[in-house]
């Protein structure tokens, strides 16, 4: 009898194991909310583009679900003790989707393309500290930096390697993407779908499992929701928290979660009254009730956060380190009075209209701020207009959603250093600049941690940004979708491991 029991258990385990065996084939029907403007990985700024091309291109490195840097097109690397020389050994036997072999010339061509002002690449500024790139034969590349730059390896994950010859021959990367990734570009019907098919020569054994990815472009949230509930779509990547809530108990649908690196924020212009006064910025933080925001906008699925995402474990300071995060409208009023505004202040919040979370957050904030004397008027702008005003620093306050970075320096330096590439706040503080420079050039992790802890406290309360909430990143999938893992960077890296159970 007992033996029978063991046998039964063995059969059960065996059958479970069998059920877990990935099945090959099938097309994953994905629904996304907006159409990419173009597919060029070096020009794109929108999530809509990266969701698609992240499956086509790879960098030398990649960032996994724990935000660790892993090898991708580079098999291994060595860093010189002074932190100035990075030598990468490239993976051999890799070919691009058009059949060309991948080697060091592609890395050089890619780097030069990003650096070329004519390309107008928004990621060019992330490689400002690279002095020189050299190929030592086809399988090795060396990067020389002008000063140590700790986040270099994680920044390289965002540098999609493109084929040198294709680009030199005038290939149009905006419309025909050619990379080395698990899926290759097949067809793009504007506003309808983008179809990627399996790369049969992909270097990871047996990957990908799926025959094709079809990105259906479905702008309406209600339609996406009904679509995944009825089985029309298999997968909705990176959905709004409100959509996640409506799908939470839908039969046949499951939710993948991870901590999002992206965060909602209020940014202020420190050259305009009243926010030129640090006291007013501090008061603004006291007036915000972040916990209520989590409830109202994120349906409870998120955490209040400071300048660094809680996903950056070991780097992010807990919010208890920031006194101004204890909501206190009286204190806010008092600070406003000290700053010379006893009757409160009036201002306009420019709001990014294309992201529902932001529009929702602005409306909740407007209600929260009023009792503390911050009388906000909301002005919703569509993406183009918003980006224009943002770039020209033409705002009192704006509300937006920012993508984060896997390394603290990646986000903090470009945002808060004097003249930083995304410092549209015109923020300039010598102490902050000094700490930022120490942070990026220090090579010991412990020293960096101390520096960033100090920076976070300084920036959280009186910096130009009121960081609000880091949401839970949800993706919704049908029950038969297996093997996917959610990554805080919003990358869909693990679609290469995803399969459809029958």
């Amino acid at each position: 009898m007992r033996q029978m029991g063991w046998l039964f258990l063995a059969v059960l385990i065996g059958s479970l194991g069998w059920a877990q065996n990935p099945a090959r084939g099938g097309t994953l029907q994905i629904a996304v909310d907006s159409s990419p403007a173009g597919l060029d990985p070096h020009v794109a700024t929108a999530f809509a583009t990266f969701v698609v091309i992240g499956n086509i291109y790879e960098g030398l490195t990649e960032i996994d679900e724990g935000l660790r840097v892993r090898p991708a097109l580079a098999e291994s690397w060595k860093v010189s003790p002074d932190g100035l020389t990075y030598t990468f050994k490239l993976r051999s036997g890799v070919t691009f989707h058009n059949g060309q072999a991948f080697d060091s010339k592609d890395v050089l061509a890619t780097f030069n393309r990003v650096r070329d002002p004519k390309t107008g690449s928004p990621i060019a500024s992330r490689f400002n500290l690279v002095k020189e790139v050299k190929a030592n034969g086809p399988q090795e590349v060396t990067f020389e930096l002008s000063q140590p730059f700790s986040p270099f390896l994680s920044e390289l994950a965002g540098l999609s390697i493109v084929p040198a010859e294709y680009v030199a021959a005038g290939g149009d990367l905006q419309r025909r993407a050619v990379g080395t990734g698990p899926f290759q570009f097949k067809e793009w019907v504007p506003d309808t779908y983008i179809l990627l098919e399996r790369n049969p020569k992909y270097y990871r054994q047996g990957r990908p499992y799926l025959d094709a990815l079809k990105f259906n472009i479905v702008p309406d949230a209600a339609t996406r929701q009904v679509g995944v509930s009825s089985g029309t779509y298999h997968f909705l990547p990176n959905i709004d928290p409100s959509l996640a809530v409506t799908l939470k108990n839908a039969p046949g649908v499951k939710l993948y979660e991870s901590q999002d690196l992206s965060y909602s924020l209020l940014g202020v212009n420190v050259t305009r009254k009243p926010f030129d006064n640090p006291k007013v910025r501090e008061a603004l933080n006291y007036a915000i009730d972040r916990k209520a925001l989590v409830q109202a906008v994120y349906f409870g699925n998120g955490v209040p956060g400071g300048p660094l995402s809680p996903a950056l474990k070991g780097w992010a300071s807990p919010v208890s380190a920031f006194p101004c995060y204890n909501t206190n409208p009286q204190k806010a009023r008092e600070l406003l009075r000290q700053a010379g505004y006893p009757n409160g202040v009036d201002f306009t919040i420019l709001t990014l209209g294309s992201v529902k979370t932001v529009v929702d957050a602005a409306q909740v904030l407007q209600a929260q701020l009023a009792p503390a004397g911050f009388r906000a008027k909301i002005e919703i702008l569509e993406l183009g207009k918003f980006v224009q005003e943002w770039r020209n620093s033409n705002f009192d306050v704006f509300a937006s959603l920012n993508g984060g970075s896997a390394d603290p320096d990646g986000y903090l330096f470009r945002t808060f250093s004097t003249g930083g590439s995304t410092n549209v706040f015109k923020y300039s503080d010598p102490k902050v600049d000094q700490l930022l420079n120490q942070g990026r050039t220090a090579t010991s992790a412990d020293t960096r941690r101390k520096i960033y802890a100090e920076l976070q406290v300084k920036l959280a309360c009186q910096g130009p940004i009121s960081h609000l909430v880091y949401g839970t990143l949800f993706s919704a999938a049908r029950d038969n979708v297996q093997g996917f893992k959610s990554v805080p960077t919003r990358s869909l890296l693990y679609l290469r491991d995803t399969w459809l159970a029958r």
Partner: protein
Amino acid sequence: MSGTWGFTRGLLKNPLGALSLILTLLIVIGGLFAPLIAPYDPLQQDILARLSGPTAQHWLGTDQFGRDVLSRILHGIRASLSVAGLSVIIALLIGGFLGVSAAYYGSLYDRLVMRVMDVFLAFPIILLAIGIIAMLGPNQSNTAIAIGIVYIPIFARLVRGPALVLRESEYVHAAQALGASTMRIINRHLLPNLTSVILVQSTLSLSTAILVEASLSFLGLGTQPPTPSLGLMLSEGRAYLTLSPWTSVFSGLAILVASLGFNLLGDVLRDALDPRLRGR
């Protein structure tokens, strides 16, 4: 004044007339006095009571921030009415002026004006409105301007025909012979005779304008949040359709009722004012 009262009583005897009057009165009063009669501030949030169906506290339920749907609908009607009303006034003033002046001065001016009107009429209504908003940028007042421009040719054509007939009539000739100024003739003789056609067309146009405003807001090309607008509420509510369909259902119903009231009224007025249609 007794004439107006008699006329109204006539409308009330007809069940549809009564219904149309009741509906439009409800809408106009609801819209005009929204700040007074709405049970809540339309922007006041109550997260704990969010997405509820109709209850004793919230007769039409609450939206995603726990805002009272009834109060938002009342303010939404107010917004719809002001956009629709403003657009009709723009169209009436400009279109009416163009139509009457074209009829009065005739010849080349008339032909030029009416050709330009034909050009505007060639566009499908929503497409022209969308095009204008693409230029001006989406917000409430631009919506009113866009719809107003779309309506100008309709009013110009409408008043030109009767104005032409009147211009040739005996009593205008008589007035001219007596040395009355052009403005005086237009004000005293032409306009009063056009009142009924203008009244009917304005009422019907209000109905369409409410629909167009709702469509534009639905597309994100009209009123912007957090201002309550019926089309916007319908569109926002759709995100929570399976959790709580109430916001979408009630705001859609409000669009229907508002538009229906004016359309019905226009229809009934046409029957009552146009002797040729009487008794049909």
